């Protein structure tokens, strides 16, 4: 089993005619992902790796009513429009690969997604992979092996090193999910933890956070309710301090956002804290029945 994506789930690529969109469509197809079409407004009539290119997501969905996942590879200034278009067209999972999307845009996408019950991963996510089945995004396949550990990370590169460490430790993944490294993202840790908690192909979950923001702190409450063990790693213990967002930031965040605050909250929620990524397999072994 796996969450969100497997070899039967139909996907499209928005921005398929771009350099990255085109390259990774090929890599996704090679991996086994069921990419059925692509979208680039103004480029209908073209073909990319044998896939038909549409002007609008709407037309795509008319021709392939089972599309469940889209990934977005367009430049930052078009990302909001692309995501809203996909949500409006009824696609239920939207993977926003694009990074450096304006914050106000992403807040808008997030609101619309919540209203329509759509899961948005990203912006600035590497995507997700269910090893041996399918991947959406640009994750390097080499590290990911089929297995029974779910992983969730904010950073793309950390997602890869997590898988790498699990591989060394003899584990593999049910699904590895990047929720995105931008300041404002769609789904947060909790949304994805819920999927793994329900998935009978997942025995334990690894959560990798980093300094800044409050998503890790927010996840802690839900971890308390989970039946499966959660191993958490926080990057940035030695990071230079970022600048404060005036008094307003302090008034709103109330001390959250540091590595210490995140580790304290996650530990309080019952997560097992890994000092390094390499330490994760040991903690899995100790905490899996």
């Amino acid at each position, binding site marked *: 089993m796996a969450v969100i994506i497997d070899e039967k789930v139909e996907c499209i690529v928005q921005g398929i005619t771009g350099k990255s969109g085109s390259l990774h469509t090929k890599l996704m197809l090679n991996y086994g992902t069921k990419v059925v079409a692509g979208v680039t407004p103004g480029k209908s009539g073209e073909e990319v790796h044998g896939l038909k290119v549409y002007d609008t997501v709407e037309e795509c969905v008319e021709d392939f009513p089972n599309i469940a996942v889209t990934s977005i590879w367009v430049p930052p200034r078009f990302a909001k429009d692309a995501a809203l278009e996909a949500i409006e067209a009824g696609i239920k999972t939207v993977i926003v690969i694009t990074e450096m999307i304006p914050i106000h845009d992403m807040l808008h996408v997030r609101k619309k997604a919540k209203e329509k019950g759509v899961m948005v991963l990203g912006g600035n996510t590497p995507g997700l992979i269910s090893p041996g089945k399918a991947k959406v995004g640009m994750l390097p396949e080499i590290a990911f092996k089929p297995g029974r550990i779910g992983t969730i990370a904010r950073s793309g590169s950390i997602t890869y090193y997590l898988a790498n460490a699990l591989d060394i430790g003899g584990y593999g993944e049910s699904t590895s999910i990047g929720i995105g490294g931008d300041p404002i993202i769609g789904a947060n840790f909790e949304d994805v933890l819920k999927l793994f908690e329900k998935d009978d192909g997942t025995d334990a979950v690894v959560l990798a956070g980093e300094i800044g923001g409050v998503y890790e702190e927010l996840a802690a409450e839900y971890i308390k309710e989970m039946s499966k063990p959660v191993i958490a790693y926080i*990057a940035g213990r030695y990071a230079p301090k970022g600048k404060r967002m*005036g008094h307003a930031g302090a008034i709103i965040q109330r001390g959250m956002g540091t590595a210490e605050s995140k580790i304290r909250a996650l530990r309080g929620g019952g997560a097992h804290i890994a000092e390094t990524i390499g330490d994760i397999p040991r903690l899995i072994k100790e905490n899996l029945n």
Partner: protein
Amino acid sequence: MRLHEFEAKEILKKYKIPFAEGMLIRDAKDIDKLTQEYFPAILKAQVLVGGRGKAGGILTAETRDDAKAKIQKLLGMKIKGYNVESVLVEKKVDVEDELYVAVTIDRLEHRIAIITSEMGGINVEQIAEKYQEKIVKYYVDVDETIHPYVGRSLAKRIGLKGKQLIKVGGIIHSLFKAFKEFDGTLIEINPLAITKNNEVIALDAVFNIDTDALYRHPKLAEMGIKPRHEVGELTEREKIAREANFPYVDLEGDIGVFPGGAGFGIAAVDLIHHFGGKPANFMDSGGGPTVERMEQMIGLLMDNPKVKVIFGARFGGISRCDLWAEAIISYLKKRHADGKQIKPMVMRMAGNMEKEGRELFEKAKKDEPQLFKVVKIYAYNTPIEEVIKETIRTAERIEG
């Protein structure tokens, strides 16, 4: 990114926010333009950081001569690492009461938050902690707007009445508008002063704007506001990186860190510390960097006299291994041709387009083995921890 106080005020004046009469002085010569009617005046060092008052960056001058001396002193100062390059001179205002008004994004709520308090001033954070009931928050979805009555309602809730309620209500409404129209991440007016004459005047103004949204605000570029701001606190290398548009922070150690994305960049700094090493920097290539940018990144480390060895890692995702290899080879060739020393590099490469990258390295090694004497490139089967440990050992072997 943060705007200077004088820039924030220039923008917010168009939204009818009332400020004290003021003049920006960049050059000590300009002091003579000040007429006597400016005094007594407040002299404010323009730096892109909070807390300048406590750091001596805000002075009062009773006369023009007094101001001259003090401005000259301020223009030579450094505040929290920032050079003071200009001073804003404003007529002094007799303050009766200090309010606080801010608009920001609450990342817990994912909404715009308007924050107001009847107790503004430099201690507003302590007040917020001690007297939570003195802080009034109002949330708005990013695709919504507020109407003037919301401003009045907030003004009422911080205890205002009559004309002051109207004025402060209007200010709140206007600040929200400016925040939305300029992709703000923070606007803070602290203090928003009530003067002894019952006037309302915004004494300070902080305006932070989303750098990723700058492209849609040509007015800022017209005002000379570009993503060039925090230069004051940057080291030489940090300035170069900012010019080239990638994040870079100098640290205290001797191991140059050339990672992939920001996430592993932070983790790599942690790991080097964890295994007893000292990183010389934090760096982030961003997604899908160009060959040119990666060459600049390596160059920054090679040229840093503190750096003994470079730790490199590429786990190819959107950033492709083949381009990474191309950048390293190209840089090494140029450095060699320039007759400069190639410092040891301990690196690992895995991921997308790895095969292509490895072929590039093999060909280059065969063609120009001299470039690779102190350069090691491990593959997927060597754990990253081992690569880092070897990096640290290499650094230890090199004499400081």
